[in-house]
């Protein structure tokens, strides 16, 4: 879909050291989330809040990396949903399920809108390129 419209580009792959750092950070964050869950009283009620924080942080990092407004919006949404569900007392597996359903719909909508705009703004060229 994209090649005939905007061409093909192969970006440089991240260095091995950068990949290793990303993996280590991911492991540390995962361990921190598990540790927080174990420490918090009635910890399962705070699952949506922690999910919101974790997903929101990841989306914010993506937003910073790619400088895309929609990722900032999604990050804010993730945090807001997480806080709202926890404050409303909808925790545990139900809260987790609701959180992921809402975020999935939001991400699908955001991606679909972006694709629609891209197709609108980048019609395929009439003649084939050499």
């Amino acid at each position, binding site marked *: 879909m994209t090649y*005939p419209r*905007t*061409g*093909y580009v192969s970006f440089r792959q991240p260095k091995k050291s950068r990949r290793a750092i990303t993996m280590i950070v991911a492991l540390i964050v995962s361990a921190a989330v598990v540790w927080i869950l174990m420490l918090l009283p009635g910890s399962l009620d705070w699952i949506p809040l922690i999910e919101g924080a974790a997903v929101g942080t990841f989306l914010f990092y993506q937003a910073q990396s790619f400088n895309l407004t929609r990722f900032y919006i999604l990050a804010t949404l993730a945090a807001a949903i997480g806080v709202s569900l926890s404050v409303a007392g909808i925790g545990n597996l139900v809260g987790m399920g609701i959180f992921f359903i809402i975020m999935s719909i939001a991400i699908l909508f955001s991606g679909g809108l972006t694709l629609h705009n891209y197709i609108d703004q980048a019609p395929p*060229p009439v003649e084939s390129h050499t």
Partner: protein
Amino acid sequence: MTNQIDDDFVEITRNLGEIDRLIHEPSRLMIVAMLSSVESADFLYLKRETGLTRGNLSSHLSKLEEAGYIEVEKTYRGKIPLTICSLTEKGCQAFQEYRKQIKQFVEKT
């Protein structure tokens, strides 16, 4: 205010005469700068990003290829023909040297 011109400044300014004119041309500079930041890019991508016409871009790519600064590969992705361009090691070094010269000039003036 001094009337003396710094010797370093004179030398750096003179060295501008030896700058790589193949890269220094604005359109080719755009092409080389873009290729230096990616693994490879195809003709259509370069055309869109540089804003050059097809003929203009072809001409500049030919010159860069003749000088050994880029590699051009004609291939397919599925059924879609692609002309893939990438910077060679020689092109990379030439661009780094060009950047160094311009940076020195800008810093001293």
